[in-house]
């Protein structure tokens, strides 16, 4: 939808994913979005260089999120939210809102 504006579709997908899920890492984005890892890494690198995303190491994983200090963050997210709301529900659920458990699970719990 916004790929012409952003220059490529992976940037759009990464931005939508982080808008909905707050954080993400390269391999997780690859799996969720169904795009090559290298394309995800290029997109993350480009967005980080632009100051739009920041990353923080969590163990061996680099976790990305929107940069709260990006001066146009509110406007960008409002714009993305409008575009996101225009996506078909099926696509939103498949790519960005998969029904996977995210709440904590106590260690050793059988189910």
């Amino acid at each position, binding site marked *: 939808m916004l790929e012409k504006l952003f220059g490529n579709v992976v940037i759009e997908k990464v931005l939508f994913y982080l808008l909905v899920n707050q954080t993400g890492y390269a391999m997780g984005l690859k799996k969720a979005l169904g795009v090559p890892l290298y394309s995800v890494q290029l997109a993350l690198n480009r967005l980080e*260089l*632009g*100051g739009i995303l920041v990353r923080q190491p969590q163990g061996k994983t680099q976790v990305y999120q929107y940069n*709260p*200090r990006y*001066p146009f*963050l*509110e406007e960008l997210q409002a714009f993305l939210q409008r575009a996101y709301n225009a996506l078909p529900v099926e696509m939103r659920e498949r790519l960005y809102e998969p029904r996977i458990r995210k709440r904590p699970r106590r260690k050793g719990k059988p189910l």
Partner: protein
Amino acid sequence: MIEWEKISLEDVAGFLSEELRKRGIEVVLVGGACVTIYSGNRYQSYDLDFVVYEDMKRVKQALKELGFHENGKYFQHRGCKWIVEFVSSPVAVGKEIIASFENMKVATGTIKMLRVEDSVKDRLASYFHWNDKQGLDQALDICAERSVDLKEIESWAIKEGFEKKFQNFVEKLQRL
């Protein structure tokens, strides 16, 4: 003749600002280097972050002419310990876009840089958003050395939504 092994951070900033200006490229010094300058070296940064609005191809060509080599995201001059980086525009502290700057004269030229209040805001933004204690300490380092308009910083902090953390900063400032 510049002695690159001995040159100070301020003089690198002045040299680059002046030489790039001569080539029609205006840069603004931001980040930790401003803290080093305003805090009288209480905090020592080893890199110089500049914001530039020009095409980076022109900047890279100019830096090459000045003897700087590119190393990943950084530029460095042979024998010089300071690292130069160009960060994304615009110049901003939080949501506030900066349009007014300090022009500081040093031996090698005039540095266009964040005003002292904006440098404090820049460091406080790290503390506000990331709970970065180093950012808080650096903001305090500047205030220990310079006269700062706290009213201006307070109204910015309120707009950013961090009044409580600003109060914490003020309490620490009063204990200096």
